[in-house]
């Protein structure tokens, strides 16, 4: 059985005529025990999709089932026992201590007794928050705060854990620690859905969905997506002329042949449709030379978004012409 099943799920905000399609029509199946990533720029609709899965935001169209339960149906309470959510915003009580926050959410889930005590101790030990039990949540570092939020969401041992940008504002060591936690949960059979704007984190998921303007533009295991990139990824080896980088950037950004570009240290990284490499090299003559590079997830992402924009422009242009 699939852990999460979405069918033509969508949500609009606002009233006609200025309806904002935050999530268009998304169909998705996530099996149990998968670590699923939702990747996309800000405003792509990741949070809206996650909130619909969590039963917080009723969909405008389509349906969602979590462990076979409709979170907006009669069994909504049952769904809440199955789902754990770590919201993007600060969702804990800053003026309560680590221990008090845990106890409060345990009370809301109706947890008591030895069972609660063992779980609480275990969560405190795996998040390494044990020594900070008496500290107020507002005085925790970004990483510790997120770990506490994860611990609060896991007290009732949900089947499905939804995390909205859990690594936002978290330093790299804590970030790695969080991901290690997620791996541990997934190995235990939990389904984990995580949104992130960080491309390097996408490759840590079993499968990722690239999201842009409310739609999935790609959905596959991350390496498979990178391998499928049908464009040339090149680095610009800059010539030693004054302001080479600035000039090269200007050329690359103006060129219709370059699909996507991103700064790379002191240099530039460009994605070019196959076959166009010599032409781009000619445009950059005197400023630098092109060296082939290995494709990364970021290249894939930027290319996908750029192509979508280009297609959207050309289709409106065609419509206007017709």
């Amino acid at each position, binding site marked *: 059985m699939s852990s999460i099943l979405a069918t033509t799920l969508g949500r609009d905000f606002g009233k006609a005529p200025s309806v904002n399609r935050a999530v268009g029509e998304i169909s998705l199946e996530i099996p*149990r025990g998968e670590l699923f990533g939702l990747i996309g720029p800000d405003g792509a609709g990741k949070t809206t999709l996650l909130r619909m899965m969590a039963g*917080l935001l009723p969909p405008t169209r389509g349906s969602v089932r979590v462990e076979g339960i409709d979170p907006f149906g009669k069994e909504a309470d049952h769904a809440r*026992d199955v789902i754990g959510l770590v919201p993007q*915003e*600060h969702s804990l009580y800053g*003026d309560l201590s680590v221990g008090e926050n845990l106890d409060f959410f345990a009370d809301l889930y109706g947890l008591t007794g030895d069972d609660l005590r063992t779980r609480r101790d275990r969560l405190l030990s795996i998040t390494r928050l044990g020594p900070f039990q008496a500290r107020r949540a507002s005085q925790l570092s970004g990483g510790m705060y997120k770990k506490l939020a994860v611990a*609060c969401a896991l007290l*009732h041992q949900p089947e499905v854990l939804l995390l909205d940008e859990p690594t936002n504002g978290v330093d790299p060591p804590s970030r790695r620690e969080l991901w290690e936690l997620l791996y541990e949960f997934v190995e235990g059979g939990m389904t984990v859905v995580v949104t992130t704007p960080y491309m390097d984190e996408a490759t840590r998921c079993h499968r990722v969905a690239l999201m842009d303007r409310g739609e999935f533009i790609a959905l596959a295991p991350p390496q498979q997506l990178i391998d499928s990139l049908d464009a040339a990824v090149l680095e610009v080896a800059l010539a030693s002329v004054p302001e080479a980088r600035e000039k090269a950037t200007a050329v690359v950004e103006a060129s219709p042949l370059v699909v996507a570009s991103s700064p790379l240290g002191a240099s530039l990284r460009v994605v070019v449709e196959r076959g166009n490499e010599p032409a781009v090299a000619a445009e950059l003559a005197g400023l630098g030379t092109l060296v082939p590079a290995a494709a990364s997830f970021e290249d894939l992402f930027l290319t996908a978004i750029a192509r979508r924009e280009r297609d959207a422009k050309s289709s409106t242009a065609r419509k206007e012409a017709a």
Partner: protein
Amino acid sequence: MSNETHEVMAPYEPPPRSLLQSWLAAPWAVAKKELRQTLRDPRVMAVLVIAPALQLLVLGHAANLEVDRVPTVIVDLDDTTDSRRALAELIADDTLREVARAHSPDEATALLVQGRASVAIVVPDGWSRDLHRAVPTHPARVQVLVDGTDPNRSGIAGSAALRFFSMLAARSVQERLAQMQGSMTALAGQSADLGTVTASAMAAAAGAPSSASPSVPSAMRPTQLSLAPRVLYNPRLRTAYNMVPGIATMLLLIVTTIVTSMGLARERESGTLEQVLVTPVRPWALILGKMLPFAGIGLFDLLLALVVGTYVFDVPIRGSIPLLFGVTFVYLLTTLGLGLLISTVSQTQQQAFLAGLFVMMPGILLSGIMTPIESMPSWLQPVTYLNPLRWFSQIVRAVMIRGATLDEILGPLGALAVCGFVLATVAILRFRKTAG
């Protein structure tokens, strides 16, 4: 995700919960958390406990409608022994306080304009002559000028002065009547039919100098007929008797409504509401839990108001104290319900606070605490029936000052309960709709 992991995972079992647990545990958990947060925040504690005590003390003294020591300028153009004695007697009453002497009405008006005095009393030249003549067509007149920018204070002071001078005039008429009677008795000797004195003649002689003719031959023995109203429950007509229950009503409204509305808005604003709403806790349980601690604090504030009222303002508590607390609990349902309702239409704490002010001001003005409902325009009076403040302040006054029992306050208590029920129901329905 291999198949092994699927098999390792235990099938889902909801945590065992007894009915009692699920009904009480969640509200209790929320209440406990709320109380913890409140006790931990010194600013909120100050708003809830210290501010009410201070406001009660300050308002109890400041919102004093008893008029005394009104700055007065005196123009004595008559300048006779009579006028000087009369003015000294007037000032001795302490309602008016002489701040200046002027030599002409114009000079007195100037002082009023400058704001140095609120009332001017002009005793014209020849006043004592008119007083002694006591001719009804030409009575002894004084002029009282009043600063209208503070109509209540100046009006009361002005009419007090007028009353005083009318009384002097009346006294003078009586004295004259007595003199006349004396001379008439001397003239007529022991003549007959002295017994037929009409009541109207007596009343005229005693109270209304204008209709009392000094040449009435049948006025024999002027009988003093005076009207002495007896004020029940508050014989000294002290404002505190009215203000302490009124202030308690307003304080409970402000404290509980603002804190509830801002408390929920704060959870919405900071995102904590989201985390709470993904738990199986029911909306009503969440609301109940959030309201309970503030209802408790509201009852504590009532206790505070009663203590301050008794020991600082000498306001008696003639009715039953448990009844007062019971009624207050019903009132708190309405104020907390109002706070919750405000929170459902507010996204931020700031909005909640402003919306709270917007609702509370008319609530207070239309409650009859500050101004009597009877003196509001007739179309506005029915609106006050919807105002829980009106009913609660009415009940508190009745119970505290008149010692009313439950039977005697059933009407307003019923109205209050209806207000509370409607507000709480609408609030919960709206909260359920907007929570998601």
